[in-house]
């Protein structure tokens, strides 16, 4: 079974198999047998691989797995290959406005159905105590404005969506 993970901004691909007695993690440059054993405390495991036992703490979030290992914390994004393809197509036409950072919506200037021109202000957000006006990436019609003033949003949240461009 193939999996794509996002680690420190880089995609990494692997393939998990089981040889009848143990799991094997296959990567483009090699394969390692591995075993994850819970030790009792919440989220605490020992990862056995390559003849070594690594103690770690782990929590599975909706999109990422968070791992505390050797005194550092890592976020491992789980990339769904299907989403990745869809995402590429969806953003190609500049239909979605994604949040550049988490923040709060200060005001919303348009509503679904409104015709907008490139550069027209769609909404004002506040992040890190700075206000930023987000504008339409192209001429079009507003399909969706998912947030209202006062709402907070996360990184890469869809702040505005235009109806798909006609061919």
């Amino acid at each position, binding site marked *: 079974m193939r999996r794509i993970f996002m680690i420190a901004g880089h995609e990494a691909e692997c393939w998990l*198999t089981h040889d009848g007695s143990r799991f094997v993690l296959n990567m483009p440059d090699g394969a390692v047998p591995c075993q994850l054993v819970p030790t009792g405390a919440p*989220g605490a495991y020992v990862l056995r691989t390559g003849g070594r036992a690594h103690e770690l703490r*782990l929590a599975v*979030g909706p999109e990422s797995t968070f791992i505390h290992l050797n005194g550092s914390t890592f976020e491992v994004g789980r990339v769904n290959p299907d989403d990745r393809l869809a995402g590429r197509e969806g953003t190609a036409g500049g239909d979605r406005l994604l949040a550049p950072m988490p923040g709060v919506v200060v005001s919303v200037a348009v509503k679904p159905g409104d015709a907008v021109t490139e550069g027209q202000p769609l909404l004002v957000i506040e992040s890190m105590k700075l206000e930023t006006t987000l504008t339409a990436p192209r001429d079009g019609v507003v399909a969706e404005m998912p947030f209202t003033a006062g709402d907070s949003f996360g990184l890469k949240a869809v702040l505005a969506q235009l109806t798909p461009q006609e061919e």
Partner: protein
Amino acid sequence: MTISKLLVANRGEIAARVVRTAKARGLATAVLRHVAEQEGPAHLIADEVVMIDGPTPVAAYLDIPQIVATAKKIDADAVHPGYGFLSENAGFVAALEEAGVTFVGPTSEVIDLMGDKVRARAFVEKRGFPVAPSAIEDDDPATFVERARTLGYPLLIKPSAGGGGKGMRIVREDSTLETEIETAHREGQRYFGDGRLFVERYIERPRHIEVQVMGDGQGNVVHFWERECSIQRRFQKIIEETPSPALSPEQRDEICETAAGIARAVNYRGAGTVEFIYAQDGAFYFLEMNTRLQVEHPVTEMVTGFDLVAEQLRIAAGEGLSAAQADIPQTGHSIELRICAEDATADFRPAIGDILLLDEPHGEGIRVDSGIRDSGKVTTDFDPMLSKLIVHGPDRAQAIARARNAVQNYVILGVTTNTGYLDAILAHPDFASGDVSTGFLAEQADVLTAPGEDVSTLLMAAAALSDQRLVTDVMQIPEMHRKMGGWRN
């Protein structure tokens, strides 16, 4: 006056910290909560939680009439403001005074004076305390260039109406002074519609050193020694320590006595902090006075053994200071790390998320003042600081070792935090030798955010094996196919 019920007009870790001391002193306690706010540790331990309204949670905590009315409604006879929010708002203090509620802090007059940076600086200078040599154009425009020249180089030209570093110019040579002043005039006009300037001696690679003071409002002031706060990002401190590695015993006494003298000059009441710019040559200059408890006050508590909130409450109740100067020790070394939900590798962008797993360090010499709970949510409604990790050790080297060990074992999963970045600072040789300035984090940005050892194979294995669906699917593949393994599909 006696105080029997305290309203804490703050939130997060500081609200919990104040409530703990108030309860230990036998007071009834109340805290505030906005509808959109997660239940935090303070809400669990306070006797009473009062809901407040506002268009945003921050607006509610800044709503003076609502908070004063809340204090009256629940019969609180005193309000502790914590830090931030209304803690240095003279109007809030005046409104409480009018309502007959005791403010745990200084008088509105002192807050007013120290809140105006130009007035505060003039006051301190007039009383003979050190301020950076400066010349103000408005005092006599005709002699401005001459007066600037006599200060000595390098100089820093600042627009009088300015802020945020805009329009500031450093002048290192006399030959360029006049043209730089002309340019600064034009820039001030352009940025602020006001070309007036002032010039002060520019301090190269300064340190930020501050002194904790406490006054009873009856003329008695003591200091609780200094804190070094030079480790700053975006002009905000993230690591503080005491004692400062920069000061000799004589300099320490001098800077601490200067701070106490400034507090005495305003007949200071309550806890305050006098901040200084400390130059590489050992000279120090008054920067400003913060008329409240500071975020970093725990390091002072660790080396002196005093509970500063207890002292504040004593003073507010008219019981005065609990100790004379000679009875306030400075024992061992303490370091505080501010644990923030932010991405140090992306310009400290605030992070949000759900806390999936929380395991805070504990043990000898370790204190955690935390504003978060397991399964809580981290939002951008408030400051990104989640908690403070404070350690104490017999000396600086042991305190650093203890801080590294503790921050490495601070497990917060579900939201990006700066624990790894803080550890990288502690591991830096310049930090270990104490050779830092307020520019340290910016100068060493590349070193401090460099990726560590590549553990991606371990991470992928752990992420794959903890994916229940993946594990189930893999186990269901018929034996024969399993043995084929590899990359064939």
